[in-house]
């Protein structure tokens, strides 16, 4: 799992690469926890290079969203592959998350 973090105009952009599953979810959570501890209120997670997400990964993303909402932070997901988007649709998490079409759209949507 590789996670690249960049600050763009006050927005924290997390670009993930690899699977988000039971093995890598703790790493994803740890990375986002740092931003949440710093009360970053605008976060984009780019999943463009994530080919596989399991229920642990979905649970981790839900936890991150809940923690962000706890202090009024906003989260946008972007660049979901059709397969990963399919998992969000099956679980109806596409109703819970704000999913943008492309990183630029995500950045401009805050």
């Amino acid at each position, binding site marked *: 799992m590789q996670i690249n973090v960049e600050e763009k105009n006050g927005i924290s952009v997390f670009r993930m690469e690899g699977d988000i599953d039971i093995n890598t979810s703790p790493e994803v959570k740890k990375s986002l926890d740092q931003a949440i501890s710093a009360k970053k209120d605008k976060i984009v997670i780019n999943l463009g290079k994530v080919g596989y997400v399991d*229920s642990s990964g979905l649970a981790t993303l*839900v936890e991150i969203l*809940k923690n962000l909402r706890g202090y009024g932070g906003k989260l946008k997901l972007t660049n979901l592959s059709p397969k990963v988007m399919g998992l969000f649709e099956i679980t109806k*998490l596409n109703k*819970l998350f704000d999913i943008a079409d492309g990183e630029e759209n995500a950045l401009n949507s805050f």
Partner: protein
Amino acid sequence: MNIEIANDSYLLKETCEKLLKLLRENGVDENTIFDIHVGFEEALRNAMVHGNKSMPNKKVKINAQVTEDHVLISIEDEGDGFDPKSLPDPTLDENLLREGGRGVYLVEHLMDEVRYENGGRRVVMKKYFVKSHK
């Protein structure tokens, strides 16, 4: 594929890879393999964590038969069993923010046929290679 593995989460990925290799050798398309991957891994983890309660002395039996048009998989743990109907629907609005409870739901929606036997200790799943639309 007919194996019995130790209840060790480190064997989860390895076992999953064996199944995916078998499917690829049989020419199964990648979209279908993705669904089977998620369904199989969720079901196997449920058996190890919820069925066998992560106890290292327990085992999981796995059988997978690949035919021309489908794969039939069974996964059996040594736990107390469970009633899948007792699980809350994770897609209801009031449950969307719950962190857990999506594993069984994903299995049921990604595989074409799913049934529980032996009091919920064994899950039997079928996936057709020509994807059916639910």
